[in-house]
């Protein structure tokens, strides 16, 4: 390929799209006039441009535009609910009402925020309450919660003892006699809630000699 031919081929696309300088355009025109093969290159390059221009010859009809606007509205709707007043969402998307209610919603968010913060503080500052009411809700898990030693001559089959155990949802896991006294391993359904009332009830009935809380162990 000669230098002129190479220059011609490199300038040709810009000759076709009309962006050459006057001097360059004159060079291409002169080359075309002198060389027959150059005309084929021009025809070829022009057909490429025509094909590419045709790709953009479509215009959206009203139906297509409306379909797009619908998609746009759907896209902006959920986003807007999170963005509050400073949103760039245009009001024509039917969200003007939501925008007007923005400040009221802000206040609710602030109040809810303080509520959550207060609850968190309560749980941190009152671990006893938290533990007793929530953490120790252990169900009947087969683990002994209290070791109870009955008073002398009181048997586990004593109706009063059984009634107390039933009242406080307690289950006897194991019993043994040690030095003439019965020792019971008791599982409570709601340990933190019932262990002290059970002990108190058995003590009031005169059936309890001693006890040991096993949960802490």
């Amino acid at each position, binding site marked *: 390929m000669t230098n002129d031919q190479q220059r011609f081929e490199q300038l040709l696309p810009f000759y076709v799209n009309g962006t050459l300088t006057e001097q360059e355009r004159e060079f291409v025109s002169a080359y075309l006039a002198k060389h027959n093969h150059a005309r084929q*290159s021009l*025809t070829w390059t022009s057909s*490429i441009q025509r094909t*590419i221009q045709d790709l953009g010859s*479509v215009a959206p009809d009203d139906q297509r535009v409306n379909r797009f*606007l619908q998609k746009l509205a759907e*896209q*902006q709707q959920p986003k807007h609910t999170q963005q509050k007043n400073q949103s760039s969402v*245009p009001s024509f998307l039917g969200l003007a009402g939501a925008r007007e209610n923005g400040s009221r919603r802000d206040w609710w968010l602030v109040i809810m925020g303080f509520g959550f913060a207060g609850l968190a503080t309560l749980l941190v500052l009152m671990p006893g309450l938290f533990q007793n009411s929530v953490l120790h809700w252990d169900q009947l898990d087969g683990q002994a919660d209290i070791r109870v030693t009955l008073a002398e001559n009181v048997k586990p089959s004593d109706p009063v003892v059984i009634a107390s155990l039933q009242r406080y949802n307690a289950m006897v896991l194991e019993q043994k006699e040690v030095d003439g006294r019965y020792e019971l391993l008791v599982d409570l359904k709601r340990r933190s809630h019932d262990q002290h009332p059970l002990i108190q009830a058995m003590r009031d009935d005169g059936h309890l000699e001693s006890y040991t809380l096993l949960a802490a162990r």
Partner: protein
Amino acid sequence: MNSAASDHDIEDWLARFHDGDERAATAIYRGYFSVVSAFVRLHVDDAGAVEEIVDDTFLAAFDGLSRFEHRSSFKTWLIGIAKNKSHDWLRRAKREPSISELDDTLLLDQLVDQSWPAIERIAAMQINKLLHFCLQRLTLAHREATFFVFFEEMSVEQAAQELCCSVGTVKSRLFYARLKLSDCIKRRLHNPQVQT
């Protein structure tokens, strides 16, 4: 103001869109539909996917207008989004064909017939269809160069700036793009069953 936005009045339309003018979204969509469609159709050969990608491009643009920093024209920014959307689709569809992975100069050496195709006797519609097929199989760099020069009618300097390369590179890419298209067309005309 026209009902279709253009680079001359796009700032006004963007401001109107931000202020909630219903006509702004329509004007911007109508104004840039052609260029976005052409760009996407140059990459994607599935008509249904083209429509989806074009709309997704505009949706992404409207959604991220705050990220438009005016460092480029709105059209260039939009085409950048269309490019990403098209590539995502091609990646998902596992379609990224190209005429040749060979180095350009190697391709030139391998071509037995280096003349441009004689297309005068072939119906324009057939050539158009074949060329569209072959354009979609150019490498990305060649496709972009042909788009900016032949569709956007940019000068060589403008195209170089758009493609972030030298003037010489733009000229070279266009030459080899035309050569590859020529080879593709000749193969297809010789044997319509050939895929590239």
